[in-house]
């Protein structure tokens, strides 16, 4: 055995997370140090009774829930609380997938409750969590609406082929938001790098959206993304990052930047832009001439969640067509629920024919899903994308 081999020892993921946590912060450090045992697979909490809990903790993205007129209440959440006599701790805790994952990985690895009963994560991140064994299997016997009303297109996805872990929350179309006054000329991704927009552009920290749009602008297909097409996309963006045209890479917080005027145009998600438009009619959605990205956010129950049964009921709640319609009419993302179209027509007939909520063939032709990546390619791309952001 070589000296190197002798020195080499496998380090459990638990130890990995202990160290990550130690440097990330005392609280997380304590959480990690509180673990014991040598198994690399955390064990779920045993006591998950089939009764409604007093509270259910939901982590979601901003601009992803319906609000009342005065924006002080969330009608579908309140209705759930009334129906099940529980309290929903609904927190807009997710700004981007990576940063949220950073906050839950230590307890997940340690086999401890993350504090969340529901986390809403994009396909690729949800797939990673399933691969790591960090998601609870759904007990679909508790979820009659979900079983009946999940659209067929969401069944058989490679990362959850038997629909055991994920309940899609919404489909997301990625494109561009622009201020009509200062960036009205923006029609495609490359227009973001116009000198007139110097220092007034933001891109998303979600690699698949930003790079996906860049690939489309280069004439590459994100569904066939490889290192070559990725490098070409980086090469397209990099000069505008270096010269300061790109001001920031953001998560969902691009909303504040564009509303305040710090940013005139940005890569954005279509439903967000509609909602931002309620606040400032100058901010409009631009469907990039080269096409849009498409992905889904999915509700999952992190392993060891304390209130699994209530979480399943929460998921199921949003698969009632009338609730899904109420939600979709406000957030205007693509609904994954059968029967939403008929129900939404009762609220606003025009929404039932909105292709960005119920994509038609013409829009579907413009939507592009990013390729599934091997771990090596994902590391390669994430690393270069981080470098693009100065990290």
């Amino acid at each position, binding site marked *: 055995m070589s000296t190197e081999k002798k020195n080499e020892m496998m380090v459990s993921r638990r130890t990995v997370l202990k160290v990550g946590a130690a*440097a990330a912060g005392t609280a997380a450090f304590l959480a990690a140090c509180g673990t014991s045992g040598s198994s690399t697979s955390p064990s779920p909490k045993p006591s998950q009774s089939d009764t409604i809990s007093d509270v259910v903790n939901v982590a979601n993205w901003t601009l992803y829930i319906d609000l009342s007129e005065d924006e002080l209440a969330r009608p579908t959440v309140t209705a759930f609380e009334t129906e099940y006599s529980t309290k929903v701790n609904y927190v807009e805790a997710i700004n981007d997938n990576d940063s949220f994952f950073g906050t839950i990985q230590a307890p997940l690895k340690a086999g401890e409750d993350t504090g969340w009963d529901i986390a809403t994560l994009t396909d690729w991140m949800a797939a990673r969590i399933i691969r790591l064994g960090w998601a609870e299997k759904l007990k679909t016997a508790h979820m009659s609406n979900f079983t009946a009303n999940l659209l067929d297109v969401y069944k058989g996805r490679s990362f959850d082929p038997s629909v055991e872990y994920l309940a899609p929350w919404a489909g997301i179309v990625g494109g561009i938001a622009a201020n009509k006054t200062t960036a009205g000329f923006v029609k495609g991704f490359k227009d973001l790098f116009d000198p007139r927009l110097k220092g007034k552009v933001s891109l998303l920290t979600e690699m698949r959206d930003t790079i996906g749009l860049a690939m489309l602008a280069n004439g590459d297909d994100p569904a066939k993304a490889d290192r070559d097409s990725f490098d070409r996309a980086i090469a397209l963006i990099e000069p505008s990052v270096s010269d300061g045209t790109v001001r920031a890479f953001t998560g969902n917080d691009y909303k504040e930047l564009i509303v305040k005027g710090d940013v005139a145009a940005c890569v954005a998600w279509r439903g967000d832009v509609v909602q931002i438009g309620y606040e400032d009619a100058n901010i409009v959605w631009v469907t990039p001439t080269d096409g849009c990205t498409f992905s889904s956010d999915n509700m999952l129950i992190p392993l060891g969640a304390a209130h699994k049964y209530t979480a399943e009921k929460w998921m199921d709640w949003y698969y009632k067509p009338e609730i899904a319609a109420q939600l979709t009419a406000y957030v205007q993302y693509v609904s994954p629920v059968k029967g939403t179209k008929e129900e939404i027509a009762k609220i606003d007939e025009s929404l039932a024919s909105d292709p960005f909520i119920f994509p038609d063939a013409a829009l579907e032709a413009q939507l592009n899903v990013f390729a599934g990546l091997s771990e090596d390619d994902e590391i390669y791309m994430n690393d270069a994308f*981080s470098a693009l952001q*100065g990290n």
Partner: protein
Amino acid sequence: MIAFLRRRPGLLPLLLLAPAIAWLVAFYVYPAIQMLQASLWSGTLESGFAFSWANAATYPAALDRYSDQFLRSILYAAVSTVVCLVLAFPLAYTIAYRAGRFRTLLLFIVIAPFFTSFLLRVLAWKTVLGDDGFLLGPLKSIGLLPEDFRVLATPIAVIFGISYNFFPFMVLPIYVSLEKIDRRLVEAAKDLYAGPVRAFQRITLPLALPGVFAGSLLVFIPAMGDFVNAELLGSVQTRLIGNVIQSRFLVNNDYPTAAALSFMLMAGILAAVFIYARVLGTDELESGIG
């Protein structure tokens, strides 16, 4: 117990030090050792990590790749320290000698920002300094500033944020040093025909130096590792080493590089403090902090 300690008086200091030593071991030494260990791993989150001394190559590789961010951190921390010093000394002097019955109020004002969260303070500045915010917006509308002028997403905003947030750490030690000075020494200097400037140069300033040294350390050290100001007030061009460490740990799950960078940052700061203390004398530092 008391009788036992009377028989062994040498144990008393150790007993008194025990809680602090336990704290340091648990929250400094142990994490530092783990961090050192992690820096020598290779692998990925999904496949697991393996330890090998051969992975020490991570250190030069990380230093080479992130040298810009390291240098930028040193530069921004140094400039912020100087900015804090220049602003804090007159303020501390005024509070110590000229504030009269307002002394307590002024001290309260200095520390008042600490009553709100660090993050909220930075976010507030993000709003205040916005391109069309209530500070720059009116100046642009009356033509005093060009339309494309901005403060946010520039090095100035980051240095300003760091200086603002760590300012009290400079004011308070200097104030303590100034307040401890026996004013009869200044009176004596004046009796010996020293003017106010000369008395300040020969009496006040030298005796206040321990506070300046302590304040400089208290500002420089956290400023070196700061990432919040760069994240919220800066841009891609103003990334600091703290941003890189945060990103490598929590976004890229690249624990070895993140740990190596953290360790180098910690070692670098310790070395700088050691040299600083050796050059200036630890007595000065202790009296400044005390």
